[in-house]
């Protein structure tokens, strides 16, 4: 099947799009397949907020939605802002193809480019059984900050690593 392999060589297109209320069905569908957690209606309302537009997107592989990432902005003491990565996932058949890294790169770019608010750090939870997940984030500069005991209520194991990446503001240093 010579022609088939030659077609396979054309690089796949990975693209992103902002969420709208009309594409929320895809996000719901992906979440239900990707994560063992059922997300609340409040979550689905929050991710549509215009402030987080850059940080909540759908991921397409050859024009088919195969993943998403969603974040929430959190204010911290001293007027600093953190970005909490709520979900990030790619459908199983599309993993190990560099899609995740492209997603992470796009997300980190958005974070560093964000001016108002300026984002001081990005952090997330990873279930302690998910070593591959942890390794992925560490490759992208995340560090283990702590272990959150009994973070998950309904799944085992309940503990989670808190991984974070801190950005130093060039204007301060």
């Amino acid at each position, binding site marked *: 099947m010579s022609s*088939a392999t030659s077609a*396979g060589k054309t690089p796949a297109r990975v693209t992103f799009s902002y969420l709208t209320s009309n594409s*929320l*069905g895809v996000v*719901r*569908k992906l979440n239900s397949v990707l994560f063992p957690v059922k997300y609340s209606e409040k979550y689905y309302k929050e991710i549509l907020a215009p402030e987080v537009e850059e940080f909540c997107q759908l991921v397409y*592989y050859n024009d088919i939605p195969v993943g998403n990432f969603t974040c929430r902005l959190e204010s911290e003491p001293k007027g600093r802002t953190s970005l909490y990565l709520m979900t990030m996932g790619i*459908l199983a*058949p599309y993993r190990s193809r560099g899609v995740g890294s492209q997603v992470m790169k796009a997300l980190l770019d958005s974070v560093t480019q964000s001016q108002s608010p300026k984002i001081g750090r990005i952090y997330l939870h990873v279930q302690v059984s998910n070593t591959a997940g942890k390794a992925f984030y560490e490759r992208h500069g995340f560090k283990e900050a702590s272990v959150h005991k009994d973070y998950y209520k309904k799944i085992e194991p309940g503990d989670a690593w808190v991984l974070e990446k801190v950005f130093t503001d060039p204007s301060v240093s």
Partner: protein
Amino acid sequence: MPPPSLPIPAKRALPSKEATLFRELLTLYETRQLKKGLKTADLILKKYPEHGETLCMKGLLLTHMGRREEGIDLVKKGMRFDLTSHICWHVFGLIQKGEKNYEEALKSYTQALRFDKENLNILRDSAHLQTQLRIFDALVETRHTLLRLRPNLRQNWVALAVAYHLNGELDEARKVLEQYESILKDVPDYDVEHSEMLLYHVALLEEVGQFSEALSLLDTNAKARLIIDRTAVMERRARLLTKLGNVEEAEHAWKALIQQNSDCRDYYKGYLSIKGVDLDTMSEEARQETVRILRTFSEQPPKATVPRRLALEYSKGDEFKELVEPYLFSGLSKGIPSLFVDLKDLYKDQDKQRVIEELVEDASSSSTPSEPPTTYLWSLYFLSQHYLHLRQYSRALNLLDIAISHTPTLPELYTCKARVLKRSGDTYGAAQSLNDARLLDLQDRFLNTKCAKYRLRAGLSDEAQEIFGLFTKKDAPTPASDLEDMQSLMFLTEDGDSHNRSGRLAMALKRYVAVQKTFNEFEDDQYDFHGYSLRKFTINIYMNLVSWEDQARSHPAHVHAAIEGARIFVRVHDNPALRNPQASSGQLTDAGKKAKKRAKKAAQKIQEDPKKTATSANEDKGLEAPAPKDDDPDGTKLLASSEGLEIAAKLLQPLVNLELPSIRLWVTVYDVAVRRKKYLQAVKALLHASTLDPADPEVHVRLVEIRKLWSILPQPPAAPIGSTTSEILEELIPSSTNLETYNAEYLQRGGTSASIVLSAAKASQVLGAPEDEVSSMVFNLFNPDVNLSIKISVEALSYLKVIHSPRVDEFRSRLDSKFELSTIFKPSSEFEAYRKQAIGSSFDMDGGEYVPQ
């Protein structure tokens, strides 16, 4: 205006002051200064209250101002005072034309012309009416008169040619154009109108078969830059050269066209046609030559799909495999959703079908890491459609489930699953699956509409309206009324069918009649073009319009609506209890009640409307009669009409005129005619049907029925009709036939066909067999050698209900177990649960709603 041809009667003559006022009145009307016009008319009428022409003009003004009834009364009054005035008749004609009563309007215009033979306005309007009514010989005469009166007007020449053309006198038409061209002077450069006229002349010559004259006319004028539509010149040139057999130049011409638009199938077909290529009759050498040519085109830039696809049609065996493989894999890796639809035409050839199946099976047997997972996904999708096409529903469903668990976010997988479920008789599951697809992209109009359609298929009329309502005008009384205004044939047909299946005959009829009305509007719409197209010299496209209009009613939506509408009247005639809305609506669901309430509200709103508009009477409302208010919002009055069969006959008449080759049409015409005791019409219809297929099951029942009926008729119709009917009937089924044997033999011949088994059962019921015998004949559908489809099953089930068989429920439950995937044969007590399932989603989510951006 030319001087009147008759002496002015005393009562029309006005003194000079009023005569001036009257002339003023005419100008005011021409310029649509309605209010001023009305004042002027009143001034004249104050002194001469019986002046017919003024009365008519005042009536016309009032009609324009929306005071229609008052206006028409005045026009009629004015007519009575002055029956020999062309103005009065003209006004009357205008009013009738406004009511779309073209026949009567033409009569009035003809009267007007008697009193003012050379009135240009009236002549022009008459010509339009004659075209609308297709009275072409009179049209030629009118156009002649117009040309004689105004030979300096260019359009009058072309109009006469067109009139001759429509009347079938092509040679006369050609002569008119030739003479016109010979006297024409000073044509400006790049004149589109003149270019169109010349192209029309070329087309005319082509139509009469004078190809070389056509070609030289085309070439001369193209070179002189008088014909400026370059593409049209090239296309016609190529076609004419082909018809003339000028192979070398034709080849060149088609190649040039392909260069210009390499995605136009017709160009390749044209190119191949000079090679004497015809797929059905072509020789082996010609076939190979064709493939060779197409391969050459495929390899040349610009890279187009069309020659590759065409080569698949002409190639065979190993060469086909060699060509189809890259075609398939480029489609699968690009993710072209329509790939299967594009290729399924090749399945006519069993070998090609097998080759494609093998190739895609291979590709989808595993997901190889070297290829993007989407290629694997699209091949699963392709294969699902493939097995759906081959009616291997379980296999298709399995593949779709694999695909959905691989990538659950591709709407196409859910729409395909919906189609598989629909075909396997699970209309509720189908509606649910399409809702799943819709939830993935709430702003996709296609998915929303399709979902609404599937809900209608599942009998969920109200739930469907909710979705249709997302895209209709927000201030429309109901989504349905807006869709009717928008002439959505899909909606009217599907909603009508949905009501029809659920036994809500009145609403079904209402929708079918709305389809009919839409086509009436199509027919009326052409009127303006009779004037406009000639004025603008868009003649070529206008000729297409006229012939399209003549065939418009053969459109499938119109045919379907007319036949199903007529069949409802037949059913109601046979069982008058269906007329009763309670009986016909069956169990009125909550949804049904809600719909009824809404329809009532809508009707009220429409009734309130005229009041609102009547207050502002100053602007021009035109002459078109406003749509009468709907006093039958749910169709019950129409359904209960005592003239149902006559209305049915009228519904069918346009199709009878078109002599459509549809068995269902002719048996319906028969059903209506035989109940109206129009026996000659009935046997003629049956003859039509029988010519199409003498062994058709629907024809068989009726042959038996009419033969039986004829033999026991107390008094045959009078001489000419009676004997002609007899003769045709004798031809269809001889009087010596033993009908029982005839029916038994029919069954024996076609006993494995479900529709024949059912038809024989129906025929034996016609012949007086007892109900239990008929029922058990229907139950023979379950014999293992009978190929029973869902469609026939549904028909058989409703037939058992019609003959009040006590075994209806037994039949239903046997169908339920026979068609495992189906839900349509479930007991009605389970309906509510299925309804909930159908409008829900298989995803874990709340029902989404489309939000306009």
